[in-house]
């Protein structure tokens, strides 16, 4: 992985043949540039979308999903190429707007207007009057279950309710085409599931729906998918077709006796293996095209270890299209020393929360949360937006003061001596936190200086980071101009330069492409092997399974804390004997909610 060769830019050469029943949307050779010198945001996209289906536009940030949706909604003019929605050009044909419903990423709601006022506004704008208006309001309020909240201001709704109201507003006037831009972001899994049910119902009624998402597991639910990366269309087809092409290549390595991270690292060295991740107690591997199963000998997984074929995922197909994962050896580990704890430090509580509570006014963001993280453990904090996971996380790394309780790092109370603790921890913020006007090298120099590295030691460390993260070609570029994946790499480099014993990562992989995500986890795994204790938050359900243990935060409370496998097994029911991580979370949240309701009544 040290020197990643420039990836070829694969793309679907031809759009698949259009269906016999005609198409609702057709795009030909669509090119879109913002500025003459800028790289294309959409690079000669040709595809179609069938009527009455849910089509997923899938890809990381910067793939071109939003640009494509905006072009379809007539909000952007193509640089070249043609766009047809229901046979018309959306840019010039104003009447077409009545046929298109569009929900932007921020839902497009007026927060200082009530639910009913938002509905009234969009009904008037879309000429929904008289009988039809009364009828569709009744229908929408029942459909979204918002009838009880018509007088509430939109700004005071929860994420899930905002999203439903946004959907209702874009559905007024019964559009034939519905464009949804990342509707699942920032919404709890239960609301997301409900949204799917609603959208599914609409598609049955004949509506054409385009749904963009960065989550490949979510895209598996669509009728069709269009995989996108860096402005190009990588593949088009049904999830079944795309995953079917991977049949036989996805395997689980089970019954491990050796540590999972070591097994994964060795497995990824096998030439047959294209990609691999940790999944609970097992290791999940994907083979190269037409490759044999690898020899288990050198992998040293244990005497009883076996390979079991499992159902492929859309992510496997995506990574295969991108040319395979980055491999399992982290050059960062080679320059990282093993962590030696002080003799009087309890290795089972390197990070500890004791009845941690944070109140903002009369709102309790974190409510008596307690946990301990052991040396070398990867500990994941999960939960919907606004549940309190970021607040908990920030108290543990000393960025917020707890109202009650204690946050300890290496046995040091962060309230009493925050700076002593800070020197020993590394932190990577959710939002990109480097100086965008400085070059990559200047950022490295600045952050190493802040952590007290000087002279020869500092120069050596900077060189090591450049080597480990393959930053050489980018050193003199302003950070602002770097691609997203590289910015994240540089941010991680800056966070680990002082060789912290503890690493806090707040959604380090949100929005980045699957290959860069793999690369990140290779580093995280390698650091954990060296004894670094890692606390991470994530929105990706599959990433939750890379962790040793997971804490699930909901409404400020830690409602579950266990290994991923135990959490899943614990929520198995006769109806759902083998739940996915997301199903397990939904189950846990619903059970918690039921207990709350019981107490309330």
């Amino acid at each position, binding site marked *: 992985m040290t020197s990643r060769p420039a990836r070829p830019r694969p793309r679907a050469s031809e759009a698949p043949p259009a269906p016999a029943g005609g198409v609702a949307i057709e795009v030909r050779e669509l090119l879109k540039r913002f500025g003459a010198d800028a790289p294309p945001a959409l690079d000669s996209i040709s595809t179609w979308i069938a009527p009455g289906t849910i089509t997923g536009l899938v890809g990381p940030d910067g793939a071109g999903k939003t640009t494509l949706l905006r072009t379809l909604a007539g909000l952007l*003019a193509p640089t070249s190429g043609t766009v047809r929605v229901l046979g018309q050009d959306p840019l010039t044909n104003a009447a077409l707007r009545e046929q298109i419903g569009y929900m932007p990423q921020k839902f497009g709601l*007026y927060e200082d207007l009530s639910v009913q006022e938002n509905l009234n506004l969009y009904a008037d704008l879309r000429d929904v009057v008289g009988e039809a208006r009364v009828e569709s309001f009744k229908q929408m309020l029942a459909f979204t279950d918002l009838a009880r909240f018509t007088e509430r201001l939109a700004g005071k709704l929860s994420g899930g309710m905002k999203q439903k109201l946004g959907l209702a*507003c874009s559905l007024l006037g019964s559009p034939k085409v519905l464009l949804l831009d990342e509707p699942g972001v920032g919404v709890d899994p239960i609301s997301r599931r409900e949204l799917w049910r609603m959208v599914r119902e609409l598609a049955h009624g004949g509506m054409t729906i385009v749904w963009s998402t960065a989550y490949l597991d979510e895209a598996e639910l669509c009728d069709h998918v269009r995989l996108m990366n860096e402005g190009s269309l990588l593949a088009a087809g049904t999830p079944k077709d795309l995953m079917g092409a991977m049949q036989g290549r996805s395997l689980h390595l089970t019954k491990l006796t050796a540590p999972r991270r070591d097994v994964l690292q060795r497995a990824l060295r096998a030439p047959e293996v294209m990609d691999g991740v940790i999944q609970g107690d097992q290791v999940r591997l994907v083979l190269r095209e037409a490759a044999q199963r690898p020899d288990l000998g050198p992998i040293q997984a244990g005497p009883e270890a076996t390979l079991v074929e499992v159902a492929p995922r859309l992510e496997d197909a995506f990574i295969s299209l991108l040319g395979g994962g980055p491999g399992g050896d982290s050059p960062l580990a080679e320059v990282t020393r093993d962590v030696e704890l002080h003799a009087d430090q309890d290795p089972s509580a390197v990070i500890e929360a004791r009845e941690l509570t944070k109140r903002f006014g009369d709102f309790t963001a974190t409510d008596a949360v307690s946990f301990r993280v052991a040396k070398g453990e990867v500990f994941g904090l999960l939960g919907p937006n606004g549940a309190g996971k970021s607040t908990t996380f920030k108290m543990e790394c000393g960025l917020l003061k707890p109202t009650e309780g204690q946050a300890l790092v290496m046995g040091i109370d962060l309230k009493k001596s925050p700076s002593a603790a800070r020197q020993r921890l590394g932190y990577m913020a959710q939002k990109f936190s480097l100086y965008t006007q400085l070059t990559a090298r200047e950022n490295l120099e600045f952050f190493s200086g802040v952590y007290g590295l000087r002279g020869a030691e500092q120069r050596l460390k900077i060189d090591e980071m450049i080597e480990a993260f393959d930053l050489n070609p980018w050193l003199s570029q302003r950070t602002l101009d770097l691609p997203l994946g590289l910015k994240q790499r540089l941010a991680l480099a800056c966070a680990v330069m002082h060789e912290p014993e503890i690493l806090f990562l707040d959604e380090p992989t949100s929005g980045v492409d699957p290959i860069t995500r793999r690369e990140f986890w290779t580093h995280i795994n390698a650091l954990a092997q060296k004894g670094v204790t890692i606390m991470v938050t994530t929105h990706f359900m599959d990433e939750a399974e890379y962790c040793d243990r997971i804490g699930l935060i909901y409404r400020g409370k830690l409602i579950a804390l266990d290994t991923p496998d135990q959490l899943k097994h614990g929520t198995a029911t006769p109806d759902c004997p083998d739940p996915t991580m997301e199903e397990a979370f939904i189950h846990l949240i619903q059970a918690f909610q039921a207990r709350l309701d019981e107490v309330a009544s």
Partner: protein
Amino acid sequence: MKAVNLRRLRALCLKESFQILRDPSSILVAFVMPVVLLFVFGYALNLDSSSLRLGLLMEDQGPAAIQFEQTLKASSNFVVEVGHSKAALLERMAHGKLRGVVVVRSDFGARLAEGHGGAAIQVLTDGSEPNTASFVGSNLEGLWQTWQQQRGQNLALDNHPMIDVRSRAWFNPSTVSRNFLVPGAIAVVMTIIGALLTSLVVAREWERGTMEALLATPVTKAEMLLSKILPYYVLGLAAMALCLLVATLLMGVPFRGSLLALFLLTTLFLGCALGNGLFLSTVMKNQFNAASAALVSAFLPSMMLSGFVFEISSMPWPLRALTHVIPARYFAGSLQTLFQAGTLMPILVSDSLGLILLMGFWLGLTAKNTGRTLE
């Protein structure tokens, strides 16, 4: 498709009005700030010269000198402080305790008796504050003349002046500077309401992502623009009415013009200010930048270049030329005319023409920059 559909326009205006009414800051800017500013400009910013602190050193204690001292002490313009040494008085002036020092020389009585009236008193003023210094100078000069005349009459000498100048200020008979400042302040207040509030509204839609949803509906460009202008126009008229009431009823500033003329001129001026604010908002797409630009391009010129505080006729010619593109210049002038002089058509018509041209410029520019796409 028609350019304006009344239902859509009504719905958009309603939405905008709700937003105005529910945002405490817009109510604050439209109704609280005008009252505060009018009082600040009307009372705190005072260009009248009264109660100037004056130091007096009496080197001569003759009867004439004593008489002069009495006259000085009796004047309403001065508060006199008698000192014992020139150095001590100058020291107090250096500390800003005194605005000027008058020295009645030891030969005061003798030179007066000789009758050639030379430099019998010495006046020292604080040159670091030229305005105050010249007030002190001219007021003392006037006082000296009057005193000499009275003295002449008292001595029954025939020294009546050949020309007796009796000045009377025509439009502001009592020369209360408030009567002249308040109409100018109203122009400043209306600039803030018109340009600052509207500089936020389009940018807010961009920042909150509602613009995207709005553009995806059948809304037309004309509807969008009108829905941003009309509610704020009504708000501006309401604020104008409030200003008029506060000025005339609470502050006692006379209003001599016609209300219709005031309404028409306010309409024209709001057209300029709203156009200016909307243009900035449309182009910047960011509330902070747009509001900063509105402060610099609308509020500051309305303070400095409208003739409200600094008289335009005494500016150097490049600045004088620049004032012609500042809407507040025409509006402040018209308001001062309407309040102090009445409905003087020639002045109002020429001011209206200026406002109409500027209104066309700003609204045209805004319309040109309002698009139906996100770019």
